[in-house]
């Protein structure tokens, strides 16, 4: 007998920002839609453990996509991507998520993202109130400084640096195979994409003066933060949660920047109570 995962994958054609995108996504389970956004420069396989978790999939339709230009979602035809630097913008990101949910007729999904996915989770709550019943921002912050990122897209520096830096963002107590798998994923990204994603992460995303305006009666907000994340630090995540009336903050001791991928067993211990609360709120 073949041994299959629960997860299945397929492509969705989606018009976003004037171009037709062929978007790869994987899904598992049934129930309340739970949309998952990967980190900058990576793809949806970071969520593979959650997609296989029966305690989640028995009540949630779990969906993890590869954002255009990532993983199996190729750059769209009609864009001369080889002539211009890739840049992820807030407007594109918001439109993509809204259209994806609309195309699949998802009723008030839950949105969960990590790092840039955590940042856009907060933007969704602010700029698309009510689109999602809840957002879960993992490693989210009001604003994250980027600094000089030239080395992430440099002809003399290989993709190894992305892998090595990202392994360095994980917790030292996470299983090594999981930590290294994160690096493997980062080594596969197109050279300009990580830096282009960080344009959104460090430049366009800025809720410094907006987080307090998030209406958690329309979209409930949860902020989860790993103790070892030196990029979007626990202090920054806590400060964000404190600014949002009604938001909840969860400190994840012994986890780093990629909790769902670096230590899935420890992460679910923090996530399941949050999902229970969301289901209870309806």
């Amino acid at each position, binding site marked *: 007998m073949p041994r299959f995962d629960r997860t299945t994958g397929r492509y969705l054609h989606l018009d976003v920002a004037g171009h037709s995108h062929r978007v790869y996504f994987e899904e598992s389970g049934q129930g309340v839609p739970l949309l998952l956004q990967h980190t900058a420069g990576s793809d949806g396989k970071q969520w593979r453990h959650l997609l296989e978790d029966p305690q989640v999939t028995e009540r949630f339709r779990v969906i993890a996509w590869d954002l255009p230009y990532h993983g199996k979602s190729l750059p769209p035809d009609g864009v001369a991507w080889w002539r211009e630097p890739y840049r992820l913008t807030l407007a594109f990101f918001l439109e993509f998520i809204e259209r994806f949910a609309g195309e699949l007729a998802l009723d008030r999904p839950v949105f969960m993202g990590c790092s840039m996915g955590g940042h856009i989770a907060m933007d969704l709550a602010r700029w698309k109130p009510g689109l999602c019943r809840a957002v879960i921002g993992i490693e989210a912050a009001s604003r994250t400084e980027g600094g000089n990122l030239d080395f992430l897209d440099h002809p003399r520096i290989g993709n190894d*640096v992305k892998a*090595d830096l990202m392994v360095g963002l994980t917790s*030292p107590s996470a299983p090594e195979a999981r930590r290294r798998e994160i690096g493997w994923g980062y080594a596969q990204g197109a050279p300009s994409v990580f830096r282009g994603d960080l344009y959104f992460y460090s430049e366009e995303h800025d809720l410094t003066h907006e987080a307090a305006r998030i209406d958690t009666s329309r979209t409930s907000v949860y902020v989860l933060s790993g103790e070892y994340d030196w990029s979007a630090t626990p202090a920054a995540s806590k400060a964000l949660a404190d600014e949002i009336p009604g938001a909840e903050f969860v400190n994840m001791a012994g986890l*780093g920047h990629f909790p769902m991928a670096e230590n899935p067993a420890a992460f679910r211990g923090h996530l399941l109570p949050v999902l229970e609360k969301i289901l209870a709120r309806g």
Partner: protein
Amino acid sequence: MAFPDPARLSARFDSDRELARCARFWTGALHLGVGAQRYALRFEAGRFAGAEATTGSPGPRDMELVAAPAEWEKLLAAVPPPFYQDPFGASLHHPVSLGGDPETLFAYYGALRRVIEILREARA
């Protein structure tokens, strides 16, 4: 616990397959500053070529990591405190300095990380 003398770990550096992969094609040196004490780990065409105390400064294909002994205690702890698990993260949040040639630093960042892991393993 004292900082391990890199010269005494030459056999480990020389035989480490991950370090050899990370350092491929590199001719240069990794300088480690522990307070006033400096060490240089040299690489030639991707092969470990020796480690010794030095008084020299990093050259054009070199990188360096400098911290006080108390900071090295945290960098080399079996389970480092938050942000000390990675030299870049430590340099952002703690009194730890990364320097040298930026291209070399990032091209061979994996080699730097692996050297720290070997030092950490040597103290365990």
